[in-house]
């Protein structure tokens, strides 16, 4: 157990359906920090690229296969197309460490609006859970999951300290962007991360991919937000990059000052209301 955790965000640019090459790129980007409590985070579908369509079953991995491929990288969280025992393919994020599977989250919310058609390719996850690793309480999300605050709330009700979200978010609003930003659309993600971190009193690590697939440029801009809502690490937009910072649990109480709303939260009140909304008394 360690009160300090170094988190590195690997803002890679995966090549479509090139699992071996993408795994190699993740391992190349992994910083050699020489610390025990270090965690590297690679984006959504970092092993395969995004727009897989009917190639998804061909490149999908079981979670042990993911762990084996990333074993030299130490502790890594990475998005991958996960082949389940029944043959279904999920858009998943796996936490692996030295060849061992620590935890897997299957994307719950598969977007089907605008340019997205994920439900055609992937099965939807049906659970959201927290887990312990190295003394830290963690939760994982995949891209669209981050737009559904109920999932973050559910993780925070399970007392997570750090939510790791992996994404393959396209850049939009190139004409309208201002200042140093390349994509007006990324500002919304940045604000969400900051607000979630502040409201829930947790760290948020958001790893978004870079690179191009067909006409889509992915926005990059990976970031880490602290429990006071401040951004403590951020990568450039649209470029391959690695950024990282050390989280110190000893700072948690101070960062949650003056009010830790999560402490006073009452999940059962919400749970009862949700059951009523679903017609279940």
């Amino acid at each position: 157990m360690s009160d300090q955790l170094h988190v590195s965000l690997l803002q890679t640019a995966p090549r479509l359906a090139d699992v071996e090459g993408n795994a190699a790129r993740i391992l190349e980007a992994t910083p050699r920090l020489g610390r025990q409590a270090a965690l590297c985070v690679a984006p959504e579908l970092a092993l395969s690229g995004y727009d897989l369509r009917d190639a998804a079953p061909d490149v999908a991995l079981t979670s042990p296969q993911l762990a084996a491929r990333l074993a030299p990288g130490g502790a890594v969280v990475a998005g991958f197309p996960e082949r389940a025992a029944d043959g279904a393919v999920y858009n998943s994020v796996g936490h692996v460490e030295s060849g061992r599977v620590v935890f897997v989250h299957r994307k719950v919310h598969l977007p089907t609006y605008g340019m997205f058609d994920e439900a055609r390719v992937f099965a939807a996850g049906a659970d959201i859970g927290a887990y312990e690793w190295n003394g830290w309480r963690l939760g994982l999300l995949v891209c669209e999951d981050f737009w559904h605050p109920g999932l973050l709330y559910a993780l925070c009700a399970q007392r997570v300290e750090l939510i790791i979200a992996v994404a393959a978010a396209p850049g939009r609003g190139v004409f309208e962007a201002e200042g140093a930003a390349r994509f007006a659309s990324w500002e919304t993600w940045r604000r969400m991360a900051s607000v979630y971190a502040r409201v829930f009193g947790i760290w948020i690590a958001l790893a978004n991919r870079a690179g191009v697939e067909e006409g889509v440029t992915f926005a990059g801009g990976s970031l880490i937000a602290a429990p006071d809502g401040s951004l403590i690490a951020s990568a450039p937009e649209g470029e391959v990059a690695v950024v990282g910072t050390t989280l110190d649990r000893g700072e948690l109480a101070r960062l949650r000052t003056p009010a830790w709303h999560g402490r006073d939260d009452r999940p059962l009140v919400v749970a009862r209301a949700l059951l009523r909304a679903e017609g279940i008394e």
Partner: protein
Amino acid sequence: MTRTAGPPAAPRADGRDAIRRVARVITDVVAAAARDARRERLVVLDAGTPEAGLLVRCLTEGGIGLPVERIRSAVGGPASIDGLRARARAAAGVDGLLLDPVNKTVAVLWPETVAEPVLPLADLYASQVAALADGWSAPADAFDLIARAGGIGPVDAFLMEHLDRRRPVEEALRLIPDPDAGAELRDRLAAGWWWRRRLGLVPKLGGRTLGLDLR
């Protein structure tokens, strides 16, 4: 044949930064397309339009790293777009990637005039092109309708209201002062649907991109 026009009274982006951002995205997408299509050089269909100049500038500033050849219309003579296309396709051959710098206004309303595999500027409306390049272009026979609709400003405002802000067509058409011109725009929009589904690769710059979000 194409015609060009000066900038409309449209909001200007902060030109330098906007060109830098647009150039980066376009360059990355075109470079990836050339790599994936295994092409070693780029051929720009250059009818002497502001769009062609903007595209070449974007590729240059973006550091494309591939030879860029411009196939130009005859100097001083009327640009025959069909003849130019034939020359450009011949010039592209088997190792070149042909780029048509058409703007989004034309790609949406006159898609039957667009036929090349990569349309690098087709997510920028004509008035956005004008803000970056001091002019815009459209097929010559489109100008009459654009003029009767109040100019490129109202036409683009109508398209943005409908396509990007998802206002129903009839509501968005309130931005077009002439009802007959509005009806023609509505008909063009409807008639272009089949063609728009078959357009080439468009780099995503905005919220609803042809071929990606908007088919």
